[in-house]
């Protein structure tokens, strides 16, 4: 079974600073990491490989330093890494990204047919979750989003059974293979990489492709040109104001709480009136 995992190197948004003047992320202020959801995707691919046998490839699109993210995937147990990097890809939105990755997947599949594609739920810098389903649509295979468990893969009969997360529980879904899964964090815990994998990753050189290495590429669908998304405005969400810790005897606390609730609802009511 050949599993391709799509990954992305992202700035660690836990520590990133916003440039208050331009309202954009100051990417130099944060270390580049493997998108956390993608780490779970790679982990799941490696676990499925252990369960059913097979081969795990990882694919990313990004600038040359993103090789580090591929190495992290090799540490986690992936077998091969592919990176597409070219100025032609720069400025891509989710539509253009899914197009470029799909072209790369076609090329990988020529070397070794692909049975399953696993993506993280979304990236922590874009937060859209659109690239995975975009790839599935372009490959014309079923997209299974919000996957929290892979129950069974039957390659002979060509189906997979997974659990999909819902607000009120989960649903059991059966799909044909090949398909694409976008996984949630709950699907697994990322393991502590073994020393042989760390050593292998330190030595590993991924396959690096430019746009010329891909076949049948419609350049008008790449990068900024192929991106219809318009960002009209970006702003940092305002920091929530500090809360109030209510202390005292239970009676005092209840009293204060009621007082606060009344105050707030008053304010809400008056706002409605004003509107």
């Amino acid at each position, binding site marked *: 079974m050949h599993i391709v995992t799509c990954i992305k190197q992202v700035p660690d948004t836990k520590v990133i600073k916003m440039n208050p003047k331009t309202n954009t992320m100051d990417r130099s202020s944060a270390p580049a990491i493997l998108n956390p959801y993608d780490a779970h995707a790679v982990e799941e691919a490696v676990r499925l490989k252990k369960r059913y046998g097979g081969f795990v490839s990882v694919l990313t699109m990004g600038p040359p330093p993103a090789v580090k993210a591929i190495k992290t995937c090799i540490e986690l147990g992936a077998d091969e890494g592919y990176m597409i990097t070219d100025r032609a890809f720069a400025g891509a939105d989710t539509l253009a990204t899914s197009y470029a990755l799909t072209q790369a997947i076609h090329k990988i599949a020529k070397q070794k047919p692909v049975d399953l594609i696993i993506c993280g739920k979304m990236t922590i810098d874009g937060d859209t979750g659109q690239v995975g389903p975009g790839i599935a649509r372009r490959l014309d295979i079923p997209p299974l989003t919000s996957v929290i468990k892979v129950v069974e893969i039957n390659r002979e009969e060509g189906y997979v059974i997974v659990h999909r997360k819902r607000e009120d529980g989960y649903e059991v879904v059966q799909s044909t293979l090949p398909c694409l899964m976008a996984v949630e964090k709950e699907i697994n815990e990322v*393991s*502590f*990489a*073994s*020393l*042989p994998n*760390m*050593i292998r990753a*330190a*030595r590993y050189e991924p396959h690096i492709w430019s746009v010329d290495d891909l076949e049948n590429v419609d350049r008008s669908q790449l990068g900024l040109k192929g991106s219809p998304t318009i960002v009209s405005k970006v702003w940092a969400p305002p920091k929530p104001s500090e809360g109030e810790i209510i202390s005292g005897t239970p009676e005092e606390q209840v009293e204060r709480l009621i007082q606060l609730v009344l105050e707030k609802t008053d304010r809400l009511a008056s706002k409605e009136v004003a509107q």
Partner: protein
Amino acid sequence: MPEKFDCIVVGAGPAGTACAYELAKAGVNVLLLERGEYPGAKNVMGGVLYRQMLDEIIPGFYKEAPLERPIVEQRFMLLDKESAFTISYKGLEWAKEPYNNFTVLRAKFDQWFAQKAVEQGALLVCETVALECLVEDGRVVGVRTDRPEGDVYADVVVLADGVNSLLAKQLGFHKEWRPDEVALATMEIIKLDKKVIEDRFNLEEGQGCTIELLGDATKGILGTGFLYTNKDTVSIGVGTLLSGLIKHKIKPYELLEYVKNHPMVRPFIEGGEPVEYLAHLIPEGGYRSMPKVVGHGVVVVGDAAQLVNAVHREGSNLAMTSGRLAAETIIMAKEYNDFSENMLDHYRVKLMESFIGQDLKKYKDVTSFFDKHTQYFEKYIPMLNRAASQMLAVDGLSKWEKQKKVWQTLGSTGEKLQLARDMLRAWRVVK
């Protein structure tokens, strides 16, 4: 089957990286293990990097390494509560190639240095802790790491795991360091405008200055404070023997706050924004604390071998040279395929013959001497300040009378004799 390398170096600081660099350059298959997220993530020093020793490893390194400022002035401030007696040397020969020394920020510098070793062919694996040496028949044959399937083998293991060197301790090379063998340094990196730094420290653009603070900077406890200029930050810190902190019941960060607020120091950092707080142990036991540095299949380098010259605040240069000397010995040992203690002892001999052994021997009693005889820091530095104040104050007294008064500040005849004796003794210890 665990992998076997020619050599495993534990720790990607200056000593380990220098060693791995030289080994890889000679075609030795070397694994460089680092516990931090990246080399330098966990490493701390005040910030002076000497040019000569790294130049011997990577000629002309200063043209590309991430350095802060070449140092053109070194000041020594002997502090009392509200005064300072300053000695300084500034020379513009240090402002141009090949330079004397630089300030560096270790998080940046160590990454660069390790990358150089990787370019030579060393295999760097980070976020991996070496837990113990693997020993078979009395020989070190590899290390056990904290990772699954974490054993890895080698002909020789280089312990560059820093001041605490748990691995050397496990091998019985040294005991737990005594509080008078290690200093605790705490420091802050304070952000200031480039121009402000240059104005306050009297520097031309791009030049750097170091100030060592003695006396009241450490409240008279044996140790020093320091103030180093980086590109757009200033490193300020204070280091004292652990035993001194214990004896005076003072917390290290209190001492740092004290020196930051000292009236002779405060104006340098006024208005700056602290961006980092760091603390680390420094091995300052010197020659007498040096552990066993060679065993069957193992050598110890850098801080792990107590290679620090506390008097001249040199450490990273000793570390790099020790790493280089260890590499030379390992390359030779590989030619003979003999990694016995007897063969590797060549490293110890080279180390002791080099400036490292000579300097450590020269100052072998300095730390313990000043630790025992507290009057130098507690009494004589304030005395010097009072004498200077009296000498330089213009108050209508004739110069004859001035000299007499200065002479009086030195105390009674008995005290003067004591002072003379103490100065002679101190001279003998450091000469």
